[in-house]
């Protein structure tokens, strides 16, 4: 079962932001979920690390690491 966490934010800030939300982000929950998912998945970091490992392995094979 998914557990939830309550985050405390100033009411006036939330209200102001909600006025600007449209389309995909029709609620603050949708917006924050998107942002947190983007941070958490970090495909980019994983890919770069994988590419770096390929280079390191090649250097090891050549005897330079």
């Amino acid at each position, binding site marked *: 079962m998914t557990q939830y966490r309550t985050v405390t934010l100033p009411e006036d800030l939330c209200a102001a932001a909600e006025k600007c939300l449209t389309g995909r982000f029709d609620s603050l929950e949708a917006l924050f979920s998107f942002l947190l998912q983007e941070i958490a998945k970090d*495909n980019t970091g994983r890919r*770069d690390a994988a*590419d770096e490992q390929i280079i390191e392995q090649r250097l090891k094979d050549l005897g330079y690491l």
Partner: protein
Amino acid sequence: MKKSSLVFVTVDCLRADHVGFLGYSRPVTPGLDKLARNSIVFSDAVVAGAPTYFSFPAIMASRYPLALGREVLGIAPHEVTLATLLRDAGFTTAAFLAGNPYLSPRFGYEQGFETFRDFLDSESVRESAPTAPSATNWLSGLNRRIEADSRRTHLTAAAYDEVYFWYCQWRLPSENLSMDRLRVYPAAHVVVDQASSWLSSLGEEPFFLWLHLMDPHHPYYPPAEALSSMGIPGITPRRARFLNSYWNRGDVGTRRLQRHREEILSLYDAGIHWVDKQISRLVQVLQQSQRWNETVFVVTADHGEEFLEHGNRYHSPTNLSEQLIHVPLLIRSPKRLGMQLSREPFSLIHLAPTLLDGLGVAVPDSFQGRSYWEEISAGSLTSAPVIVECVKESNHPTQLGDQDLQRLMAVRDAAYKLVIDFSRGTDLLYDLANDPGEHFPLPDAALPKVRARLLQEARMHLRETRQNRNVELRLLARLREAQQSQRGKQREITTPSLAK
């Protein structure tokens, strides 16, 4: 002391070996050649990525194209760029970009510009190029059925494709055909006209003017005047349309395409020639308005173009050949007279910081490149390897499928080039001095020290990219893309593709 202004001209698809000042034998660029005689000329300038969407983050924001992740295209919201820095330093800023959708506000390129015109709206772009009349329903149905049947064998499929290509050519209307009607992008004179008009509205303040010209981009429809000026009178609009259609075919091999290569090159060269003429006109405007002696004038390109040298056409990131990554670069500064030739490899990642330094504007820490202004001014540019990267075969970079593709990287110094293909797990080493065409990768065991040195550069680049990633910028860019795709504001990005 009054600051110099900056005019920055980028030309889409302009190869280094197709300008006279870098040795091209055809007299395509007399204006640029004249300009080069009083400029710093970089004979070995290399882009940081190719094509446009992987090149411009480095040019405008001194950031490697994959530094924010391969899902991020263009300039991130609030990212510091050459334009934002010059605007904040008191320059009046304007951009006139000839209709490249990857250089639009969707990808953040308007940031820092008080005047921004991308011609994507656009009455300047082709309004009503003649197209084939629609086939009737029963004819379309019959065609689909014949095509489906033809796919049963290779031979019948080839026969169908051949007949269909010629049928389409036959059906295309020929009345009122002109290069201007066939062209997809606004020609350089349209862009220069608008830039000149903007220049005439300026006061005494320093300015930053960016022009992006698309004339050498396919489909190749140069103005008729450019063809006649180059002494190529034989290519009519109808012939040019045929040549472009044929060159775009995906169903014929290299040998058949080769038959039309010279004529396609003539069209490409005529596009460059038109750019050259219009750049000369822009220089005249600056001279006549007494601004020339206070203006740094820069000409470069975002990438080159392939004409079957490695079996490819256009500029798809299927490889990082010299035809794609080696571009012209000249910097004309009013403080220098005479030509200064810089032969060392110079990455365009360093161009923005170098120009800022030359203009007396502080270079931010966020830039991945650094200023070489001092070394260049002293004529002592030292040789350092350059990095080029892209997502291999990413021809539709906004689509999710492309974002899952693998990185392709080249590490290149003055003598050697290592191309690392992460999708294949290969690294091919080329001796550019003896094999400038990159046709013969050295044996795996050859020159291990050279290979290891270039691999170390690649490793360092990847490590720095990973460790210094700006997560905030990445998030802002992802948020922008998510909002745009949801709102349906995405403009369908289409460039002429290889037809079936």
